[in-house]
C-alpha cells in the first residue's frame, strides 16, 4: 500500500485548542483531557499535539523534530543539517512505553540556527533558509521527515489515539502557553507517523478536521510560489496557504481568513465602496487560495491561534472564554471537561474566525463578533 504522500486520504477528526493570553505556561494535561473526551471522533490511526512556549531555554533556535526510519536516514539528514546549521543540542525526544503506540520510528530533536556564512551565501532570511532545508529533507531523504521546525515550540505526533500519544511523549511534563490537539479518523491505515497531525512549518501549526474539495486547486496555486506539497494532505495545503498569506504576503490575520473563507459575492455587493474594492480584489487575486469543502481548523502561529470554519460551516467548531483563557474544540464537551464554568460559549459562524492572541500593550479585542450563542 502506498504511504501517505503518494496517495490522498480523506479523514475525519477531532480538534482542540487552548491559549492562556497572559502567556502563563501550563502543562499538557489539560489539552490531553480535552481531546480524550472526543475519543470517538478518532479511530486510533493518528493523534498529535502542538505546544508553544515549551523550549524557553532555546527560544532563538529552530527546534527540529525528526522521524527517521533508520540510522542511514538519520546520518544523511544530520550531514545536511550540520553543514548548514549550528546545532546547540541534539537528543532523542523522551518517550515512555505505551501499550497502544507501536512501530515507533527513531524520534530526535535538534536545536539549531543557520550558520551565518551559509545564510549570507543563500541570500535568504533564516525562515526562507529553514523552509528550504525542511523541503529538502522531506522530499529528498528517504525515511527522514521533519515534523516540527518552529522556535520555542514543538509538535508531538504518532499513530494512535491522542491520549496515548500524550502519554507516549510525556506531555504532562511540558509547559506551554498554547496547545493544539488532534485526533484522526483516516479512511485507510497508512501507519505512517508523519501523516498524523498537527502539520507544522516554522511556527505555523495546523490541526484540521475536514476534506478540502479544492485540494488540487490550492496545491497547484501554492506550487507556483515554490511550495512543495509532499504529503498530499489538506492540512499541509492549509498550513502553506496561511504561511503564504501571513508571512510571505504580510496580510493581517483577519484578511487571511477572508481569503481562505471568502465572503460570498452577494455579501461583498452589500459592503461600503472601500470594503467592496478590498474584498473584490482579494478574491480576484487569491481566488485559488479559497479553502473549499467542509473544514474546521485551528492554525497556531506563535503569538496566538485562529480557529475557523469553511464559509458555509460544514464541520463543528465551538469556542469558549474564561478570563484570559480561550478554548476552541470540535465539541463543547471537550471544553467543559477542562473548564467547568466558562464565561461564554459560542459557535462561530461559517468563515468567521476566532482569533486569540497573547495580550500585548496595544490590546484589542479580536474575537469573532458574528457568533451564535451555544
Amino acid at each position, binding site marked *: 500500500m502506498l504511504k501517505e504522500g503518494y496517495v490522498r486520504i480523506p479523514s475525519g477528526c477531532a480538534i482542540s485548542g487552548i491559549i492562556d493570553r497572559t502567556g502563563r505556561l501550563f502543562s499538557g494535561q489539560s489539552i490531553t483531557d480535552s481531546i480524550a473526551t472526543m475519543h470517538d471522533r478518532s479511530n486510533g490511526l493518528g493523534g498529535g499535539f502542538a505546544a508553544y512556549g515549551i523550549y524557553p531555554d532555546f527560544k532563538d533556535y529552530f527546534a527540529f523534530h525528526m522521524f527517521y526510519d533508520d540510522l542511514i536516514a538519520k546520518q544523511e539528514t544530520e550531514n545536511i543539517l550540520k553543514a548548514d546549521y549550528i546545532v546547540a543540542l541534539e537528543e532523542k525526544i523522551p518517550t515512555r512505553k505505551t501499550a497502544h503506540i507501536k512501530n515507533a520510528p527513531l524520534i530526535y530533536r535538534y536545536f539549531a540556527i543557520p550558520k551565518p556564512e551559509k545564510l549570507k551565501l543563500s541570500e535568504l532570511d533564516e525562515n526562507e533558509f529553514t523552509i528550504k532545508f525542511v523541503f529538502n529533507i522531506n522530499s529528498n531523504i528517504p525515511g527522514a521527515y521533519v515534523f516540527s521546525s518552529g522556535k520555542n515550540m514543538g509538535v508531538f505526533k504518532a499513530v494512535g489515539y491522542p491520549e496515548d500519544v500524550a502519554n507516549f511523549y510525556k506531555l504532562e511534563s511540558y509547559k506551554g502557553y498554547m496547545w493544539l490537539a488532534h485526533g484522526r479518523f483516516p479512511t485507510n491505515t497508512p501507519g505512517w507517523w508523519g501523516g498524523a497531525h498537527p502539520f507544522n512549518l516554522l511556527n505555523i501549526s495546523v490541526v484540521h478536521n475536514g476534506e478540502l474539495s479544492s485540494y488540487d486547486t490550492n496545491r497547484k496555486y501554492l506550487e507556483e510560489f*515554490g511550495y512543495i506539497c509532499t504529503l498530499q494532505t489538506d492540512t499541509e495545503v492549509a498550513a502553506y496557504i496561511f504561511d503564504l498569506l501571513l508571512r510571505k504576503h504580510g496580510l493581517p490575520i483577519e484578511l487571511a481568513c477572508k481569503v481562505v473563507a471568502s465572503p460570498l459575492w452577494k455579501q461583498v455587493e452589500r459592503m461600503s465602496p472601500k470594503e467592496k474594492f478590498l474584498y473584490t480584489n482579494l478574491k480576484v487575486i487569491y481566488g485559488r487560495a479559497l479553502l473549499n*469543502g467542509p473544514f474546521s481548523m485551528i492554525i497556531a502561529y506563535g503569538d496566538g491561534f485562529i480557529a475557523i470554519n469553511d464559509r458555509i460551516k460544514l464541520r463543528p467548531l465551538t469556542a469558549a472564554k474564561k478570563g484570559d483563557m480561550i478554548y476552541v474544540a470540535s465539541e463543547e464537551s471537550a471544553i467543559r471537561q477542562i473548564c467547568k464554568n466558562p464565561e461564554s460559549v459560542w459557535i462561530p459562524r461559517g468563515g468567521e474566525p476566532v482569533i486569540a492572541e497573547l495580550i500585548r500593550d496595544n490590546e484589542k479585542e479580536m474575537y469573532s463578533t458574528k457568533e451564535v450563542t451555544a
Partner: protein
Amino acid sequence: MSLSYLTPEFKVLRDYDKCINCKVCMRQCSFEVHSYDEDLDKMVSNDMNCVNCQRCVLLCPTQALTIIKHPQTFKEHANWTYDAIRDIYRQAETGGVLLSSMGNDRPYPVYWDKMVINASQVTNPSIDPLREPMELRVYLGRKPDRIEIDENLNVKTKMPPQLKLETPIMFSAMSYGSISYNAHAALARAAEELGILYNTGEGGLHKDFRKYGKNTIVQVASGRFGVDREYLNTAAAIEIKIGQGAKPGIGGHLPGEKVSEDISATRMIPSGSDAISPAPHHDIYSIEDLAQLIYSLKEATDYQKPVGVKIAAVNNVAAIASGIARAGADYIAIDGFRGGTGAAPKRIRDNVGIPIEFAIAAVDARLRSEGIRHTVSLVAAGSIRNSADIVKAIALGADAVYIATAALIALGCHMCQKCHTGKCNWGIATQDPNLVKRLNPEIGYKRLVNLVQAWSHEIKEMLGGMGINDIESLKGNRLMLRGIGMTQKELDILGILAAGE
C-alpha cells in the same frame, strides 16, 4: 456541360398523403430544393440541392417532409470512403480548394467523453445548490502576485483591468459578415442579460451595438477591419486574433458580394470589395512584435482594458502561450481543432491543430511550472458542447470557456456545414436580407439566455456534487477528473488519473 459524377447527398421524402401544396417548403428553401409543378399539381423536390438544414422539415404544417441520408452508395471500401471519392469528383470538376464550414467533423477521439467527474460520498458532504450558496463568478485578467494594503486596509496594489463574468462562459468570436446582423443582435443582448461577454470577431463593431460595449470583446485581427479609437474604447476588452482552431495558419476571405453597405461601414472597407485577412499579422512575425501590439493597444486604451490573445491549438501551444503571457497579454484564448468557422478549406479544417483538451492541460501545466499561471487567465474554446465539457475544461486549467457553435445551435443552426455558401436558411450565416429576417433577435437572445442559464444550473449541480461552492476551487482541480479508455501517455498529458486510481 459534361456530366457531373456527384449524386445527391440527401433525399427528401415527401408524404403526399400529408402534403397540402401550401408551398411553405418552397418559400423557405434558399437552396431551391422544393418547387410546385402545375402540371402534376404537386410539390416536387430536387434532392441534389438539399443540404439537410431541416428548415422545411420544421416549417411544414403537416410534417409531410423527412430528409434522409441518400441511400445511394458506392461499393463498400474501408479506405476509399464515400467522402473520399466524392471529394475527388468535386475537385476534378472545379479544380478548386474544397471549402467547408463549422468544425472538424472527422471521427477523432473526443477526450471530453473519456473523462468523468468526481462526487462526494460520506467523507465530504455534497452541496445542494438550491439551498446553499454556489458561486460561478470569475474575473479574467492579469493578477498581481499579491495584494498590498496599508494599515487602514486601503488597497495599494495597482490592479490590472479585469473582466467580470457572472458565469464562466463567453460567446466566442464570430464576425459581422460571417454571421448576420440579427445573430449579433441576439448575442450582444444575451451577453448583457447574462452578465458575460460576446466577441465581435474580426469584422468590426456595428454602430447599433456600441451600446453593449461593456459586454463586448472587440477583435483586432490581421485584416484590422473596423479598428479605430472608438472601436477599442467602446469595448470591455480587446482580443488580438492570431489564429482560429478551425483553420490554424490560414487567413480569411469574405467575398465582395457579401460586403454590403452595412458591412462595408462596419469593417471600414469599400462595399463590394473582398475582405482579406492575411494568414499572419504582417506586423507580427515574432513574439516581440506581439508584445508591441499588445502594448500599443494598451496605450491606445490608457491601460483600462484587458488585452487578450487568441491562438489556435497547435503542436507547440504550451511554449507559445508562455510567450504570450510574458508578452503582457491579460488573457489567452486557446481554440481547439474542433472549433467552428464560417468558411475554411476542408483539408485544413479536418487535419490541422490539436484537441483543446490536450492544449488546455499542456498550457496550464506549462504556465504553472513557470510560476506564471496565476498571473494570466486562460479561456478554452473549440467545441464546448455542454456544461460537463465546461466543468472538465475548468478542472483541466481553464478560467472560462468560449462557446460559439453551441450558441449558433441554440439560435437554430442545424450543422449543415454550408455557412460558406451564405445561404443559411436559419438566418445566421448569411447577409441575404430575405434570410436574415428569419432569425428574430427577440427569440434568439432568449434562447441564448436559456442555454447559458441551463448550463450554469448544471455546473452548480456538478460543483455541489464535488463538495465545492465556488468555481474558483475547480480551476485546475484535476483530481476531480478521472480518465476512461485512454493510454497512460494521454492521461499524463491531461494530468489526470485513470478511473479507479
